[in-house]
């Protein structure tokens, strides 16, 4: 009996959970909104890609969980998962036809239910198609699961690459048109998305890369390790120089829009690196970080703008003041929270952040800080008459800031202070017993982080030109915390990866913007469950986070 149940029970279990998720995804309108963007022009949209991918994933999970892992069982469970999902969707559609679901779920439109979910086929034929599609997905995934690992990896990554290329075509288009002959962009892209030929080419290209890497990769790696140290460091230097060159010429080769995106990502990298010191190095979860960002911006505004104080100094003069007040604020806000740990520290700092936002927003302080109308006409940076106006020029300012902050972070990490922070992070009591002065180290962490945030505030204020209290809400703090966690706590490349993923992607995929925080939330939860050390982790953190598992206490 148990044997017979194994034919379908995993499929149905995973299918039920999966269909709830898929129904939710449909009802929040994600599928509908994503269909506005084409992956392969006129053939498949991002929405349907998401739809299919979700179905494939559900069947894959069912296949994975099947025990005993016999091929027939795997395929049948996969089919059942697909079928269950399709059944739930059919039920949803039928319900939607008889009851006006839009009264409650605003996205349960006719378009969604009777067109998108059924791949464009109307009526009862659509329902039949959906059921068949579910089973077909299951069948396909079942066979796919049985393929050898290398084949699966190749197909998966190549597919992912093509989809990515199709989705990010706005990024690719200016790169291609600025740097390569038109023939290539015509081959790959149309005005909407990839061409079929383009998609296939990318697929084949990535497949070839992966296959050749798996054949040659080990050889190359051993060759690298075999090189004498001097040669290694020369290669490293060359690599760094090339990287720097690419970064420096990027805005001119990528176009205005991409420069703007890079500028915003850069600002968040700056902020992220600052918070990385507080959270990643010192282990103090600060949810009110946006307050220091605000202080930097407001000091800049007060000093350089003709409004309120009418000083009209240049932006460069504002920087030391902003840094000073930022660091001061960091220390001041750090003093009350010295004895708090963990959750309490997080909430207390969040409270501080909100208090500052409310004060800045209030009418009581309007004569000093502009109230809800903010402060405008902030000066742009000038050097000998040349004004840094557009995103391409501000980009260099941000890169300079980032490089400075990266350098400081990097040097701090392995310094005495950095090690004191690390000890504090792992166990405060033991650190204190070892003679580390908690007070000065914590205040140093807060101060440094605040200083970095203030610097970003200066650049932000100048870039935007006028600042409002609404831009300094807790969501910004949460954004920064998310991107640090996602990229890898305590790791400098992790912050950059996190910023690119969580800030850059929503800018590039406008459809994402609607669901940005939903994706953030899910990403956080999933990351914590699966890979708490982040995408590009730092070694010490990775060990810390998994030591529970090693000891067998997990």
């Amino acid at each position, binding site marked *: 009996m148990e044997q017979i149940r194994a034919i379908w029970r995993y499929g149905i279990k995973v299918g039920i959970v999966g269909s709830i998720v898929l129904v939710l995804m449909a009802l*929040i309108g994600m599928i509908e909104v994503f269909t506005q963007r084409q992956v392969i022009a006129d053939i498949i949209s991002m929405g349907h890609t998401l739809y299919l991918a979700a179905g494939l994933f559900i069947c894959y999970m069912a296949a994975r969980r099947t025990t005993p892992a016999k091929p027939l069982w795997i395929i049948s469970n996969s089919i059942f998962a697909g079928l269950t999902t399709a059944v739930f969707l059919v039920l949803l559609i039928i319900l939607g036809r008889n009851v006006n679901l839009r009264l409650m779920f605003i996205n349960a439109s006719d378009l969604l239910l009777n067109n998108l979910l059924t791949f464009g086929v109307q009526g009862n034929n659509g329902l039949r198609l959906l059921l068949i599609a579910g089973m077909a997905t299951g069948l396909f995934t079942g066979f796919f699961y049985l393929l050898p690992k290398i084949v699966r990896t190749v197909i998966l990554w190549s597919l992912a690459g093509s989809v990515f290329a199709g989705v990010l075509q706005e990024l690719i288009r200016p790169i291609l048109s600025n740097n390569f002959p038109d023939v290539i962009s015509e081959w790959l892209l149309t005005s909407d998305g990839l061409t079929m030929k383009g998609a296939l080419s990318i697929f084949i290209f990535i497949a070839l890369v992966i296959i050749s890497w798996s054949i040659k990769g080990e050889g190359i790696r051993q060759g690298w390790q075999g090189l004498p140290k001097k040669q290694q460091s020369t290669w490293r230097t060359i690599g760094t120089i090339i990287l720097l060159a690419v970064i420096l010429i990027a805005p001119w080769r990528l176009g205005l829009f991409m420069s703007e995106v890079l500028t915003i990502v850069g600002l968040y990298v700056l902020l992220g690196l600052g918070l990385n010191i507080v959270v990643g190095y010192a282990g103090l979860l600060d949810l009110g970080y946006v307050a220091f960002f605000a202080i930097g911006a407001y000091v800049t505004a007060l000093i350089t703008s003709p409004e309120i104080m009418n000083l009209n100094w240049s932006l460069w003069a504002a920087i030391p003041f902003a840094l000073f007040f930022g660091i001061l604020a960091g220390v001041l806000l750090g003093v009350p929270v010295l004895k708090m740990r963990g959750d309490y520290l997080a909430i207390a700092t969040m409270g501080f952040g*909100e208090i500052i936002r409310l004060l800045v927003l209030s009418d009581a302080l309007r004569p000093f800080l502009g109230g809800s109308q903010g402060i405008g006409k902030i000066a742009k940076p000038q050097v000998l008459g040349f004004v840094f106006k557009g995103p391409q020029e501000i980009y260099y300012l941000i890169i300079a800031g980032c490089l400075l902050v990266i350098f400081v972070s990097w040097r701090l990490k392995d310094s005495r202070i950095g090690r004191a922070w690390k000890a504090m992070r792992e166990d405060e009591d033991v650190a204190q017993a070892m003679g580390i002065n908690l007070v000065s180290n914590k205040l140093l962490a807060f101060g440094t982080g605040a200083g970095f945030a203030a610097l970003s505030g200066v650049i932000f204020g100048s870039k935007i030109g006028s600042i409002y209290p609404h831009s300094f809400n807790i969501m910004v703090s*949460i954004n920064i915390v998310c991107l640090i966690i996602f990229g890898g706590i305590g790791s400098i490349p992790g912050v950059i990866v996190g910023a690119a993923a969580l800030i850059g992607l929503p800018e590039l995929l406008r459809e994402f913007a609607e669901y940005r925080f*939903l994706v953030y939330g899910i990403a956080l939860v999933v990351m914590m469950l699966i890979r708490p050390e982040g995408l590009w982790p730092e070694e010490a953190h990775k060990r810390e*986070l998994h030591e529970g598992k090693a000891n067998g206490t997990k």
Partner: protein
Amino acid sequence: MPTKFQRWKESITATDIVMWFIGSALLVFIILGSILTLRAGRYTPVQWFDFVIYGLAQGSIYALVAMGYTLVYGVLRMINFAHSEVFMSGPFTAYYVAAYFSRSSLLESHPFICLIIVFIVSMTVSTLIAFLLERIAYRPLRNAPRLIPLITAIGASFTLMYLFRGLFGTGFQAYPVWAIFTGKWVLFKGLEIGKIQVFVIFAAALVMITLYLFIQRTRTGKAVRSVSEDKEAASLMGVDIDKTISVTFIIGGAAAGAAGVLYALVFKQVFFMMGFIPGIKAFTAAVLGGIGNIPGAMLGGLLLGLLESLGPSLFLDGYNIAAPYQLKDAIAFLVLVLVLIFRPTGLLGERLAIKKA
């Protein structure tokens, strides 16, 4: 042998002195402000009474939500950031039931039955969400280092918030008005009290007392208390930890759902972000009363409600600050920060005083 005083004198650090200075400055500021306001006589006794009643009503709502925070903190030693979304989910979904009743005029003919149904729907939904939250997001991470469940909670909070936004939209949904709640009762000469306020205070008190009795008198309640005191010992005594923690979340969820309906009745609106700030305030209430301590949550809630309601007018108005009511939330956050700094154990509770790292 050093005396107690001498030892105490030695243990003071510079930071302590700074903090005392700040604390006393704040105290002077508040007392002076109150004196100025009262002397200026800008508010009549009737208005003060209104403030008090309003504060008590608000506070009861905070107290109900605070129970959820305090219970979960007791058993899991973590702040359930997503509790504010549990609070939101109940009345949000119950809104559609209420709207349906309103449209079909069942609301006018059978107000009490409709009300009870709305409460039941709301509490069911919020309980379900709290239960799922624990199962999916918190249970797998029970032994993880401190930071991880915290981040997960924040992530879960956002997921829920924006899930509801995606499903139901960004609009403010207006709760239908129950005719039995409009208007005021006259107590005695010149003194009126809003019917809705009375209902909120009584309903909240009812739920709180029920839950308190459940925790104190039943076996499951005893299990909850034992797990919050010492998880390992409780499991050695045969308490089913998983089930008990689920029950804890269920209780908290139910209370939050009820609180949500009351909140919606008072403020007449639901929207996807309505849980965020009341959630933080409810947490403040829980800490104020003493985290892990249920009567503390109730006391903390009422106290916070009063402070929030009386604060702007009593403390700030005397200084002639423009529009002090905008700073109402700031006062609540300030209370939070002050409690965490000066008395993290809270007013009543002294359990779980020092957080283990």
